């Protein structure tokens, strides 16, 4: 393949940063969580690119693991969000600041 591997890595980095922005600027718990998913995907991309760089399938396996983990995380995360919504009738994270200082 002709594309420099760095491009993929940079793409991953950019996506990760975008995901970060999403985490930071959103007030909607679901959006935040989606952004986290974006980050994880960016990481996966990075892993796969490195796998290609090293000529080592291991990287892909790692990405696979991270997908599994992501899946598990999603389950729990969504469950938490649902329970939050049940209790507060909103998933606006800024609403939850009873504890501070």
């Amino acid at each position, binding site marked *: 393949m002709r594309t420099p591997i760095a491009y993929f890595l940079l793409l991953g980095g950019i996506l*990760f940063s975008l995901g970060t922005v999403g985490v930071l600027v959103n007030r909607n718990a679901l959006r935040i969580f*989606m952004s986290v998913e*974006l980050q994880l995907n960016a990481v*996966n991309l990075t892993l796969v690119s490195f796998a290609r760089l090293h000529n080592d*399938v291991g990287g892909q396996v790692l990405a*696979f693991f991270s997908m599994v983990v992501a*899946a598990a995380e999603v389950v729990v995360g969504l469950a938490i969000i649902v329970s939050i919504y049940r209790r507060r*009738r909103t998933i606006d994270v800024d609403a939850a600041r009873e504890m501070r200082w």
Partner: protein
Amino acid sequence: MPLDNVVFWVFAPIAIAAAIGMLVTRSVVYAALFLVVNFGCIAVMYLVLDAAFLFAVQIIVYAGAIMVLFLFVIMLLGVDRIEVRSERLWLQRPIAIVLAIGFALEVGAAVRAGVGLSTHAPDGFDLLQPAGNTQAVAEVLFRNYFFPFEATSILLIVAAIAAMVLAQRKVRAVTQAELGAELEDEPEDVETEIEVTP
């Protein structure tokens, strides 16, 4: 111009655009859909990177299962209607963006120093996987990463239990204070709470 180059330059922008779209769109549903698009692009990248197996998994697990789950929750909660975007923390966005850019630059610098912007992946990757990518992945998985693989099983059980705990609405004794809080929060839960509270 070789194919993979074309593919990259076609899909990378789309992926970024989709990500940005996810950020800026007003509706959560759209955001989810943008994310699906992004995942798709990434899947394509996997293909370019000779990770056929992951390409499949990406499509099935992410674009398929996970995002559907998301959409399902969105619908369940019906939060797509009420979407307040006003920013109370006025410094939050600028700082966030600046930091993100900084982070990206740092990663970029590391990559540039570490990998080099023009380094090409060595050839002969397919030689390592005579029986195809899936076979190779499985081999590595079950040989070197046997134990992590086992560990993930625990993870999944935990996730299942967690979901169960959080999902089921068990009646719970509440302290006076909470009861007060509940009263404001969710009127319809009150009587259930009260009747079971000794």
